[in-house]
């Protein structure tokens, strides 16, 4: 008997309006767990190299996991994956909320979607069945309008809906997918893939009770965390101020991306800070399924200028920096409005903000043709134009026609001078963390298969000091010595490698990094207890780390098959130039030689071919996925 998972994967062919249910054996679940590894498994096996990410041959996977929906904090996440229209490589993004658990309660662990529907449709998944329904009437709606309409049509306001807005319909390559309007699978353009398939939404509702092997063991961990969450500085901080606490912190460290990553401090930081949010527009703190930490923000604005609807949540740190400091904008209400628009229209706020700051930078450098500028005042700091550009991007009009291609494509059109200002890796715009001031984050930007991603290994500040809870928490991995935030040397590469396995496991197993170490409260020993308690498997940290490593290797193989190699493991040119402005890191830049040595070392530690930067056959055999070799040999 299966514990924790349903043992059912739903396959839907949108072209022929058919569906089937796959029932993989237990070993499949134990080897891959779910999430990222399920995505990589189905992308490798169902997509041929060279397919158009926005063509009908692309495959779209929604995957919860063995742990998803278990009755404990931080086990709510799910992955969405496909070949990315933004990078042309492995695409994947995760979100929390309630949708992932609801999919499990509806009887499925994952959904694999192939083909393109001839007309707009949505998928209605409930109690072990699925139905493809007409969505023609919902096409063109914002995420909020469409969610309301679907819940009304199905007659149940408790239905959880993952869906796209107009940006996804218009196939903007960084379009996102929202669930419950404020939980966002934002990265790598998965919303555009949904749009390309004429799939507006997946609605889920289920009443199935998940079978848990040892409910008492699971409850014991959940109760410990619930009891201690206000004492623990990491989880209490996440609850009280959420990620926006980072704004002033990073500003003082000199790592708050400002004016398209030119500078690391922002004169207006105070005005867009987490502190200011608490004092002004914060309406309430929210969270995800079964989680008491409640790290999400919900904001409301009612002013003469505009209103901000609290249904769309509130800006995280990423939005505050992407639409704020990095665009030179110090108006918190307008940033909150921009965040609401991005969630309503279905745009990834990180890529959106970067695209705007990039054109502002190009404009300042005189690199934008008059036809692009279109009479707009594109100076850094223009909050009003930022809001207009978000709408124009979703509808691909005016300058939005260019913005909607993303930073890499715009830079290629504008030429070499603009390419130096383009802050992306593999075509994905960078999150709002400066790789110059956080060496492990920089390595992650370069090495991760999906393009610039900040949630790979944990931030360097977690490992800077011997008595830091982050440093203490990773001792069971043999990571025992603190190291400087700017250090990209061999010890940092080792730490990065180990932590990337753990984080990758998190992404395979619905685990939220805001509930587990090194960023939060739940320990590695408790993680193992949770897996044992949910599944009944006699497992170990070793086995879980190997799941994470397996998923990285599969994603790497997917990219290798499509021609990715070492040349794609780059960093933005800007990171090799001195930080401008004021602040403690003024003048600091990455050293190209140190960076290349770090890559060499990482590939060697991974047992990869150093030149091709891809797995060797021996590594794949060691990971028990030798079938992957057939795809890349």
């Amino acid at each position, binding site marked *: 008997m299966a514990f924790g998972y349903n043992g059912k994967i739903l396959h839907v062919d949108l072209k022929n309006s058919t569906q089937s249910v796959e029932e993989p054996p237990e070993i499949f679940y134990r080897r891959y767990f779910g999430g990222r590894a399920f995505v990589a498994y189905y992308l490798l096996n169902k997509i041929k190299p060279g397919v158009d990410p926005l063509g009908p041959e692309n495959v779209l996977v929604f995957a919860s996991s063995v742990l998803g929906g278990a009755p404990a904090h931080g086990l709510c996440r799910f992955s969405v994956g496909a070949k990315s229209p933004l990078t042309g490589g492995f695409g994947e993004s995760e979100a929390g909320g309630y949708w992932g658990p609801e999919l499990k309660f509806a009887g499925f662990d994952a959904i694999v979607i192939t083909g393109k529907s001839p007309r707009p449709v949505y998928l209605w998944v409930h109690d072990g069945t699925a139905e493809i329904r007409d969505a023609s009437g919902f096409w063109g709606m914002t995420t909020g309008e469409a969610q309301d309409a679907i819940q009304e049509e199905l007659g149940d306001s408790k239905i959880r809906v993952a869906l796209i807005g107009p940006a996804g319909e218009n196939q903007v390559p960084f379009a996102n997918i929202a669930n419950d309007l404020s939980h966002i699978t934002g990265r790598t353009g998965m919303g555009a893939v949904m749009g390309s398939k004429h799939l507006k939404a997946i609605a889920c509702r289920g009443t199935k009770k998940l079978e848990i092997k040892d409910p008492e063991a699971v409850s014991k961990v959940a109760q410990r965390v619930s009891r201690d969450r206000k004492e623990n*500085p*990491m989880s*209490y*901080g996440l609850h*009280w*101020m*959420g*990620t*926006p*606490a*980072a704004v*002033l*912190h*990073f500003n*003082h*460290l000199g790592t708050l991306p400002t004016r398209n990553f030119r500078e690391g401090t922002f004169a207006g930081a105070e005005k867009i800070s*987490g*502190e*200011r949010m*608490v*004092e002004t527009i914060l309406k309430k703190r929210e969270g995800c399924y079964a989680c008491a930490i409640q790290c999400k923000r919900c904001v409301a604005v009612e002013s003469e200028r505009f209103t901000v609807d609290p249904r769309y949540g509130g800006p*995280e*740190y*990423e939005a505050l920096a992407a639409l704020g400091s990095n665009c030179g904008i110090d108006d918190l209400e307008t940033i909150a409005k921009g965040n609401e628009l991005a969630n309503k229209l279905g745009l990834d706020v990180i890529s959106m903000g970067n695209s705007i700051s990039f054109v502002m930078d190009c404009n300042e450098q005189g690199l934008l043709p008059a036809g692009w500028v279109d009479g707009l005042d594109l100076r850094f700091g223009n909050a009003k134009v930022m809001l207009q550009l978000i709408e124009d991007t979703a509808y691909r009009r005016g300058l939005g026609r260019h913005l909607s291609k993303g930073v890499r494509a715009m830079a290629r059109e504008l030429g070499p001078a603009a390419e130096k200002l383009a802050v992306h890796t593999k075509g994905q715009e960078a999150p709002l*963390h400066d790789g110059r001031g956080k060496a492990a984050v920089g390595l992650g930007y370069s090495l991760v298969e999906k393009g610039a991603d*900040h949630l790979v290994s*944990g*931030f360097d*500040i*977690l490992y800077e000091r011997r*008595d*830091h*809870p*982050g440093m203490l928490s990773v001792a069971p991995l043999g990571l025992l010595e603190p190291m400087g935030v700017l250090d990209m040397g061999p010890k940092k590469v080792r730490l990065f490698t180990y932590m990337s396995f753990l984080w990758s496991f998190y992404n395979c197993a619905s685990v939220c990094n*805001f509930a587990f170490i*090194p*960023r*939060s409260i739940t320990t590695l020993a408790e993680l193992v207890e949770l897996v044992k308690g949910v599944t009944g498997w006699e497992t170990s940290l070793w086995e879980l780390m190997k799941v994470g490593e397996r998923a990285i290797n599969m994603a790497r193989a997917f990219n290798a098959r499509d021609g990715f190699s070492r040349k794609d493991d780059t960093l933005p040119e800007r990171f090799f130039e001195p930080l401008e402005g004021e602040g*403690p890191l003024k003048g600091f830049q990455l050293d190209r030689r140190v960076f290349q040595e770090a890559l060499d070392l990482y590939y060697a530690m991974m047992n990869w071919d150093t030149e091709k930067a891809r797995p060797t056959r021996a590594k794949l055999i060691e990971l028990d996925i030798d079938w992957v070799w057939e795809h890349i040999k």
Partner: protein
Amino acid sequence: MPDHEISLRLHGHLVRYGGEKTSAFPVPIGSAETLAELIRRFKIPPAEISMIVINGQLTPRMDTPLHPDDEVRIFGLVGGG
């Protein structure tokens, strides 16, 4: 009676040691009071502090003496987002 005041601001989760105030507040100090003494007074565990800024300057030394009208900011642990 203390003669002087400083301005103290606690950031991030450290607000819990100062009545959950997000803005700066005045704190009376005795002569020759150090940063370490101030931190003890507010019962802030040193391991929960990530950074201290006095008058805009990063201040790593806990034996730093405090002066009247100093602007002291103490930052808690963050991991980014």
